């Protein structure tokens, strides 16, 4: 769906801009980061509401579903909480330690049958049962799974440049994670055949895209 694709594209673009802004001279700009996170949040809302509309026959919608990208205050605070951390005063040494459950809860608020991950504890072992593939913040498992999902995002590859090879700055771990993630997303490797054509998004088995959404969101959360 056009709206979904567009929202996804904007989200990817926003994360890329956030990553890129940290490499600039003068350090992170708080105002710019805030603006990027606002756009990312709106894009995510748009994406989720577009997806819900697509799945409408299957799930019962919550009554107050917004049709335009407007947020409920709690989620707004959450999203800002997830995205507006960078001020350099309390750097998180481990980017993976950030909240993950709220994201899962939001997703499950829209898509009933999807399994909601409520436990905030990080699982050290890889939970690679398919249902939770995109929801559980397991370092190793997530990185491995990411390689499989490259094909699903062919449409976002065009307008973005590949990230620089060398990560700098105060959060090298995060930078490397973002780099590896998005080199998968952005440089659709010709060797890997697409796991599903973009047209499959309308079907219930649009899990790859969904996982990618959560990956993107989690990248923002970690950021």
């Amino acid at each position, binding site marked *: 769906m056009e709206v979904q694709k567009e929202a996804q594209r*904007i989200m990817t*673009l926003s994360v890329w*801009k956030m990553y890129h802004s940290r490499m600039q*001279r*003068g*350090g992170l*700009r*708080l*105002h*710019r980061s*805030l*603006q990027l996170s*606002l*756009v990312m949040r*709106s*894009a995510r809302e*748009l994406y989720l509401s577009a997806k819900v509309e697509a799945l409408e026959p299957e799930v019962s919608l919550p009554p107050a579903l917004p049709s*335009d*990208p407007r947020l409920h205050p709690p989620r*707004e*605070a959450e999203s*800002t*909480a*997830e995205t*507006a*951390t960078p*001020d*350099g*005063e*309390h750097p998180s040494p481990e980017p993976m330690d950030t909240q993950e459950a709220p994201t899962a809860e939001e997703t499950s608020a829209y898509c009933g049958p999807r399994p909601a991950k409520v436990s905030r504890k990080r699982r050290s072992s890889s939970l690679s049962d398919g249902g939770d593939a995109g929801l559980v913040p397991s370092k190793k498992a997530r990185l491995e799974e990411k390689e499989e999902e490259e094909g699903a995002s062919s449409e976002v590859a065009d*307008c973005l440049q590949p990230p620089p090879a060398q990560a700098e*700055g*105060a959060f090298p771990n995060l930078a490397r994670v973002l780099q590896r993630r998005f080199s998968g997303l952005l440089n659709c490797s010709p060797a890997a055949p697409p796991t599903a054509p973009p047209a499959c998004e309308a079907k219930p088995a649009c899990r790859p895209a969904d996982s990618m959404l959560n990956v993107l969101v989690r990248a923002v959360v970690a950021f």
Partner: protein
Amino acid sequence: MAESGGGNDIQWCFSQVKGAVDDDVAEADIISTVEFNHSGELLATGDKGGRVVIFQQEQENKIQSHSRGEYNVYSTFQSHEPEFDYLKSLEIEEKINKIRWLPQKNAAQFLLSTNDKTIKLWKISERDKRPEGYNLKEEDGRYRDPTTVTTLRVPVFRPMDLMVEASPRRIFANAHTYHINSISINSDYETYLSADDLRINLWHLEITDRSFNIVDIKPANMEELTEVITAAEFHPNSCNTFVYSSSKGTIRLCDMRASALCDRHSKLFEEPEDPSNRSFFSEIISSISDVKFSHSGRYMMTRDYLSVKIWDLNMENRPVETYQVHEYLRSKLCSLYENDCIFDKFECCWNGSDSVVMTGSYNNFFRMFDRNTKRDITLEASRENNKPRTVLKPRKVCASGKRKKDEISVDSLDFNKKILHTAWHPKENIIAVATTNNLYIFQDKVN
């Protein structure tokens, strides 16, 4: 002509252009601020390389009265150097964010210049004579052998070539965690404020090791951050009053007499959002990039991405005037987000009588709005019109549909050529308009 100039039918003429001619712009030469002093005799620019260049207007030549004095380079100095914050492993840019002049009290001129972290007070003074005839020193400075001194003489001042010296008199450092976006000198001429994304500090011009924090919007939990400070200014007449604008499109007026920490505003200026204009990027284009009081102090002007708004300080719920700068960009916001133009911070300025306001746009266009006649004009800063006293032709952007002759279509606009900084002479119709690396000076036509 249907489109006469804004401002009582002024015809604007090219006067001068400063800066390199090449299209290849060195990043250090990008102009980042422009400011006339209180008399208008001096015009200061700051650039990304940390340099300040001051131009001085020549005295009017009464014989050739068809143009006002030209501006020539008066002084150039390196105000800020790149620095490194070792604790945060961050480079501190030397780019000059703002320059503000102090009113002249003696022969010397003083200005404040700031980068992201440090404000400096510079003294610019002239030296046109030097003492000669010392008893103990030779003319070249070497000391004479005291035993060879047989007579005494009184040193005298002799004229020399004019030398303009700039020296840093005060350095106000280490008071800002975030990036400084504004400085503003109080009408008491003793204090000034500096504002970063989350805090505003009050300084005394004589005291560098201490500043008072007067606004702090940093939330206890940074994850709850929803808005930042984008600009701040003292009221031109009331030394207790200042305003600051936010990324959410609000302006808060604070009275320093109310409390030491002005976290609670005295007035909150906010216009309800027009629901028909709501879009994906509404939030970010409502961010205010500049706020300027009128000279009278009765009004203030704010600039957001697409418009200029004039507020009456006595009315908080909506602006009294709104001018669309480039409404044709509203449908292009997505592309402007992609190329980062949506984050451009345009400034705005008043003319001396507060009757006309000016701001910049893309394609090296700048716009003027006459508040009395409600007419507006779009002009271009371009080297093509660079014969002195050439009257600038009004420009027009064709938003959609059939493009008329001499109109330019939105898709042909060059978004790399943006005018972010403009300044208006405090007393005359002389304006300074900064393109990326050139400074244009325009004057009204004098007959």
